[in-house]
C-alpha cells in the first residue's frame, strides 16, 4: 500500500536520504529506526508530501504522492506545537474532518468517538494547555484516528513523554490500530520501542540514510509490556537491531545491498 522507490533527498550539497526502497503492506506496523541524523524526518516529510524529494518516488495505494495526500495522517513528536491551542480537544480532533466534507454535527460525533477511544471522552471540552503531555499526545492520536487515514505516519510519537506514559501510549496505539486494521509507519530512534511496537523493523544507516536492515518481528500478540520484553526472541531481536543501528553489522549491510 506504500512503496518507496529509490527515494533520495538532498538539502543543497547535503544528502539526507539515499535511495531508500521500502514496501509496506496493508495493515502492517512498520517501525523505522536509525541513529540520530539518519534522515528519519526527511523520510517522513517526503512520504507525507510536505517536501518534494529530489529523487525517486513515493507511491501510496498505487498513486504517486505529489502534494499532501488526503488518505494519510501524521502524528508529530511535538504535540504542544501540533495541536491548536485556541481549539478545544474536540475541535482539534474535528478540524481535519472538514476535508471529509462532514457537517458540524457529524464532525463532533466522529471526534467524540475518537477521543473516547483514547480514553479522553471526559476531556473533550478542555483546551490542550489544560491537559498533561501524555493527554495532549492522546488528542493528537485521536485526531489521526478520527481522520481514518489509509496510512498513519508517526514521527517519534512517544519521544516527549515520560516512560510510563510512553508504555501506555504504545499499547494504546497497538490496540486501537489493530482494531481498525490501520497501516502504520512509525519513526523512532528507540531500538526497544521499534521491536516492541513493530511487525517489522527497518533500520536506516547514518546520513545519508539508507536501508541497512529489514527484520520481521515474529513475536506473539497482543504485546505485553512485561511479558513481551522478557521473551528471548525479543531480547535477541533488540540486540540485532541495536547492532545495526550502531553500524556494527557490516556483513549484514553488504547482504542487503
Amino acid at each position: 500500500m506504500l512503496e518507496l522507490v529509490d527515494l533520495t533527498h538532498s538539502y543543497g550539497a547535503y544528502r539526507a536520504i539515499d535511495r531508500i526502497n521500502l514496501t509496506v503492506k496493508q495493515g502492517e506496523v512498520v517501525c523505522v529506526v536509525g541513529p540520530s541524523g539518519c534522515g528519519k524526518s526527511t523520510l517522513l516529510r517526503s512520504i507525507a508530501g510536505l517536501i518534494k524529494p529530489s529523487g525517486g518516488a513515493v507511491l501510496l495505494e498505487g498513486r504517486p504522492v505529489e502534494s499532501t495526500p488526503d488518505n494519510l495522517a501524521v502524528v508529530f513528536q511535538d504535540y504542544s506545537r501540533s495541536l491548536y491551542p485556541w481549539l478545544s480537544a474536540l475541535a482539534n480532533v474535528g478540524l481535519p474532518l472538514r476535508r471529509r466534507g462532514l457537517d458540524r454535527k457529524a464532525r463532533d460525533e466522529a471526534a467524540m468517538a475518537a477521543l473516547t477511544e483514547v480514553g479522553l471522552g471526559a476531556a473533550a471540552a478542555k483546551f490542550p494547555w489544560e491537559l498533561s503531555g501524555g493527554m495532549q499526545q492522546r488528542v493528537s492520536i485521536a485526531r489521526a484516528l478520527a481522520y481514518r487515514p489509509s496510512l498513519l505516519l508517526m514521527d517519534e510519537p512517544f519521544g516527549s513523554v515520560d516512560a510510563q506514559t510512553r508504555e501506555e501510549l504504545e499499547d494504546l496505539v497497538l490496540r486501537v490500530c489493530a482494531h481498525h486494521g490501520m497501516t502504520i509507519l512509525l519513526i523512532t530512534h528507540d531500538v526497544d520501542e521499534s521491536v516492541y511496537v513493530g511487525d517489522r523493523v527497518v533500520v536506516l544507516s547514518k546520513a545519508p540514510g539508507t536501508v541497512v536492515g529489514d527484520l520481521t518481528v515474529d513475536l506473539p500478540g497482543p504485546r505485553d509490556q512485561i511479558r513481551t520484553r522478557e521473551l528471548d526472541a525479543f531480547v535477541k531481536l533488540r540486540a540485532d537491531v541495536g547492532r545495526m543501528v550502531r553500524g556494527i553489522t557490516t556483513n549484514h549491510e553488504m547482504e542487503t545491498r
Partner: protein
Amino acid sequence: MGATGLLVVLEAAGRTGLIDTTFLPLTSTVLGRAAELAVDGEFLGHALASLEAWFWALALTIAIAVPAGLLLGVARPAEVAARPLIEFLRPIPSVALIPLTIMIFQNPVHMRMSVAVYAATWPVLINTIYGVRDVDPLAKETLRSFGFGPGATVFRVVLPSAAPFIATGVRLAASVAIILVVTAEVVAGGIAGIGVFISTAGSGNRVDLMIAATAWVGLFGIAVNSLLVAAEKRLFRWHHSRMAGVS
C-alpha cells in the same frame, strides 16, 4: 490614587492662591463643568461626531492593515518589496499631513479619518506582519499533512495564531486614532467634534470647559483601552496561559 492626589493638590493650590484660577481653574470647578457637559446636548453632539470619525477610522484601519499585513507576512518577496516604502512612510508624522488632507478631502470628517487611518495603520500592520511570521511552522505543516491547501492554512492556522498580536496592534491603533481625530479637529476646525469644541472654548477663554472636555477625551481613551485589554484576556486565554507556561 495618584490621580486623586494630584486633583486634591491642584484644588488646594487654587484655593490658597498659589495658582491663578483664570489659567487653571479649581478641580471642583472643572469636575462640575465635566458633569454638566455629560448632559449638555450641544457637547454630546460634538462628542458623537468625534466618536463616529474615530470608529470608522479604526474600522477602516483594520480593513486595510490586517489583510495587508497578512499578505506581507505570508509572502516574503512582497514584504521585501514593500519594506523600503513602509520605512519611508512610517516616520512621517501624520499631523504634518493635515494641510495636504485638507486640500484633498472636502468633507472635514473624511479629512480627520484619513489622518487617523494613516497613523493607526502602522501598529496594526507591523503587528500583523510579525504575528504572521511568528506562526509555528509545525502548526502549518500539521494542517498541510491532512491535505489542506494554502488558503485553509491561512484561515485556520495563520490567522488564529496571529490574532493575539493583531489585537494588540488594534488596541494601540485605537488610542492613536483618538489622538489624531481630536488633533485634526483642533488644527483644522470645522462644525462638529470635540476638538472643535475645545478650540472654541479656548478662544472664548473658557479654560474650565477646555479642561473638562479634554478630561472626557482622556476618560474615553482609558475606557476603550481597558475594554480591549479585557477582551484580549478573554478571547486569547490560550495565548496568555501558554506565555505564562513558557516563562
